[in-house]
């Protein structure tokens, strides 16, 4: 997902049950847009079997220098 348009934001906010006006939607799109763009290279590329719980496994990986 890349930077959303204010129209995208309005629709998503409505679906989430928190309506926002046009000005707020524009501001939200500008605020969160860079994070979504920054994550775009990762989004849609992850292996099928990867679960969020793999993080806890990675925390306990043995490290030897």
């Amino acid at each position, binding site marked *: 997902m890349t930077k959303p348009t204010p129209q995208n934001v309005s629709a998503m906010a409505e679906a989430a049950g*928190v309506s926002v006006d046009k000005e707020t939607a524009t*501001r*939200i799109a500008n*605020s*969160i847009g860079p994070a979504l763009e920054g*994550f775009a290279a990762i989004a849609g590329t992850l292996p099928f079997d990867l679960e969020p719980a793999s993080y806890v496994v990675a925390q306990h990986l043995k490290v030897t220098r």
Partner: protein
Amino acid sequence: MTLTEVARAIAAKQLSSHEVTRACLHRIAQWQPHLNAFMAIESEPALKAATAADEELAKGDIKGPLHGVPLAHKDMYYDAGHVSTCGSLIRRDFVASTTSTALQRLKDAGTVRLGTLQMAEFAYGPTGHNAHYGAVHNPWKHGHVTGGSSSGSGAAVAARLTFAALGSDTGGSIRMPAHFCGVTGLKVTWGRVSRAGAMPLSQSLDTVGPLAQTAEDCALLLGLMAGLDPEDPTASAAPVQDYLAATKASLKGLRIGVPKSFYVDDLDADVAKALDATIATLKAEGADVVQVGLTDHRQLSAASQIVLAVEAAAFHKRWLIERPQDYGPQVLMRLQNALAVSGVTYLEALRWRGAALAAHIAATSGVDAVIAPVSPVAAPSIAESDIGAGQNAEAVIQRLTRFTRPINYLGLPSLAIPCGFSSSGLPIGMQLIGRSFDEATVLTIGAAFQRATDFHAKVPTLP
């Protein structure tokens, strides 16, 4: 005196808890009009508790290693029967019915409650501004920010109003105030300290940790708080290290990595100079310092922002619908940001976390810790960072916290230590980033640095 020193002095009856508490209250009365660091000052109950601690000590009844030591904490640690505002209007009158595990463990060690400390509204702000209770001022320069969200904790420890304070770090909220205020702050591994009874912001990123004068003080506090907790299923069973012993170790044989990029890019000249000087000191103390190539931490930062935004908004959704007018403009703005993130994108950001940590571990396998600035700049003025909810507000926030957020996403421990001053007299800190559940190594490095320097011992003077 440091926390460790005062605890020893009280235990040895060289000082009474009552006189130490009275001295803290005297300093608080002097500084509070200048700093706005305290949310609540509880003088009479504190003195009464201190007297009781002295009476217990006289009878040989010592509760623990912090018997009679007066402390104050960020106003988001629930303490049964006490108000915990969380820096907000919404929770201005919220009286907790339980006590947070971290706080209870410190109380069990014998601490005396001085009151509560200011914070960013709902811990969602990196500067120290608060739309409801006013900004906290930097003790080193009135009119400059303390950093947030543990703004009162940073200011109060720096001005020696409390010997230490709990903060919380979700995107930099312990390390930023430590850096801006010239104190030592420990962001622990995610899962190292129970989050039960601490106000949540983002369950995947929140960590509980101390701000204090020294690495040794942080080690003492972490040793008391770390470990399993039936009230928090995410509190880890990983073995608790001997943190105090770690602070006595030498740097010989340790290898510290300096990032080749990102953390060394676009630094203010004073910060770059302090980084170089810190590296030189660590080398002189026996550490092997090498360059290290990291993975793309800009991507980690983006993922961190997505996770934080969505989890925070989910906690706040009911109030976003029912009481949006009761939030400060900036916090409302940041909570609303999550409305543009799909559930799929949020879960992708969580799914990637393990792989991202594994890649970081591989990239840094040749070093024991990584050193990096906490922020590219020293404390900006309150006026210039009063960005409210303007169109560029989020961009300014992200720039200030770009070196702290990736570490929260990886969930690694990071010790912020004071290591210099800017040309305008404002403190500068560095962060020592360790491996998961290896707080001991960063505490070893921090303590060795503090044996060789005196930045941590410098105290601001009353304006």
